[in-house]
């Protein structure tokens, strides 16, 4: 069997007496989209913080690309290939779309202490940035100020920025949040194209999108993974239906 890109081993996180993440273990394999679903307050955001390095774990290991990254900062994990999108869109609104992505390329190239060459006319940066915009179908908007994009376009731009870092894994924190039906359809399309090259850990509320994209699903309830399996298995799992899906279908 191939080595997983990301492996969480018995992760725990407590805030004082509050035990938010409880013994979470899961793996993302190459070429796969692993979705984590769960009701509000299940601890998904905390778990993402632990994976990307913003929150130190109380115990357990995050193994990324075969290496234990527990002690590494957010920036260091990102440089090793952990690309991410945010629940609340984080783009650089005053920069152009192209500049947003070019900064991602620049970060990956690792030579940002360059003081004199104008960055805006740097062909290496721009060519790679244009390529990433092409991948997500946003090249027509390269010159637009990022803050002026529609909400859906901003979400796609986040993906392009993440791709600029040539990620080994995409950590997607509710990429569909706040997107309309058309925008969601487009995002699903973009993501299913990307999935072939880049494995993903997808945290998402939109069940349709999850069922379309995910190869495996883990269900997080009160900080614990109560079930993990293929889309069919999760759909048929009575415990999951009760804890999560059931309430939605009952509406």
């Amino acid at each position, binding site marked *: 069997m191939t080595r997983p890109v990301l492996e969480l081993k018995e992760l725990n996180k407590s805030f004082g007496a509050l035990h938010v993440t409880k013994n979470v273990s899961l793996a993302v394999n190459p070429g796969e989209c692993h979705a984590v679903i769960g009701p509000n307050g299940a601890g998904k955001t905390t778990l993402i913080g632990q994976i990307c390095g913003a929150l130190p774990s109380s115990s357990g290991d995050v193994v990324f690309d075969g290496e234990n990254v527990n002690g590494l900062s957010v920036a260091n994990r990102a440089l090793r290939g952990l*690309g991410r999108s945010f629940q609340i869109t984080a*783009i*650089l609104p005053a920069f152009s779309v192209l500049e947003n992505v070019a900064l991602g390329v*620049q970060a990956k190239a690792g030579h*940002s202490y*360059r*003081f004199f060459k104008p*960055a805006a006319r740097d062909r290496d940066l721009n060519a790679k940035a244009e390529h990433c915009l092409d991948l997500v179908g946003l090249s027509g908007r390269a010159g637009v100020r990022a803050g002026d994009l529609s909400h859906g376009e901003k979400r796609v731009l986040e993906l392009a920025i*993440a791709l600029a870092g040539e990620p080994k894994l995409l950590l997607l924190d509710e990429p569909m949040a706040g997107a309309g039906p058309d925008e969601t359809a487009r995002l699903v399309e973009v993501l299913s194209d990307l999935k072939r090259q880049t494995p993903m850990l997808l945290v998402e509320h939109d069940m349709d999108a999850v069922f379309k994209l995910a190869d495996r699903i883990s269900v997080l309830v009160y900080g614990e993974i109560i079930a993990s399996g293929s889309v069919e298995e999760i759909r048929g799992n009575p415990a999951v239906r009760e804890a999560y899906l059931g309430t939605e279908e009952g509406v």
Partner: protein
Amino acid sequence: MNGIREIMRSRAVPVILFTVLALVPVYAAVFDDRFLMLFATRILILAIAALSLDFILGLGAMVSFGHAAFIGLGAYAVGILAYHDIWAAWISFPAAILVCALFAAITGAISLKTRGVYFIMITLAFGQMAYYTATSLSAYGGDDGLTMWGRSEFLGTGLFENDTAFYCLVLAILLAAYVFLKVLAASRFGRVLKGAKQSEARLQAIGIDPFGYRLAAYVIAGSIAGIAGALLANQAEFVSPAYMSWHRSGELIVMVVLGGLGYLHGAILGAIAYLVFEEVLSHYTQHWRLIFGPLLILVVLYARGGILGAIKGKSS
């Protein structure tokens, strides 16, 4: 076509600005206006300091409330060396830069661990530390300051002694600092700085920790303000703790905001406007701040982009 027009527009203001500044000595010579020469020199010196503040405040959103400390340190470096009979500019100016770079590196490494209001408070605290240290330097005049009895020497020439030549020197340094910072702002380094201002989380997520970049910018800005201080000591032939009081730091922030944040030449316009206002209004009343204060509030409320914002708004 649009691109060319864009460039013309973005370059027009600085080109006109520096042309006018270069013509000031001609005007002063024709009308034999010595006061204008001295006054304009003082403006340009403070414009250098305001320019350096805009680099960290406007581009990097680092609201330093202790920037005047660098002016004072640069001035004291020159003053103390002169007190020990070392007048050569090639020693005193590098010394001023070095002292300021060192002070910026140490205080910046500590202050930049904080953000927002805490950064303002901690830079203010460091500034006041420098101020009180200077007032207690009894060997160098303490509270009363230090009179220099002369100006720095530049390779045996009287460059610093002649008012017009000194003005031209200050203008050349201002222009060099402006071009230097403009180039930095457009570089990869500048892009990181401007990006970190917009979303720190995004920069972390693509693998850039902004701390080192901010610190580098802080050291660069501090060093340039140190040059301004070294020039100020020469212009006044006097060094005083008042150069680094928090009032002066506040004035620098006002200049930058008044001119328009983040464009660099905005800071120069702001310095000119502030000091001309002060000069003109103080002729009428010593309580000129009573008039200036409300004016500033109006600028912040209704002309967000400052003077530059007003110019740009008209031309487009």
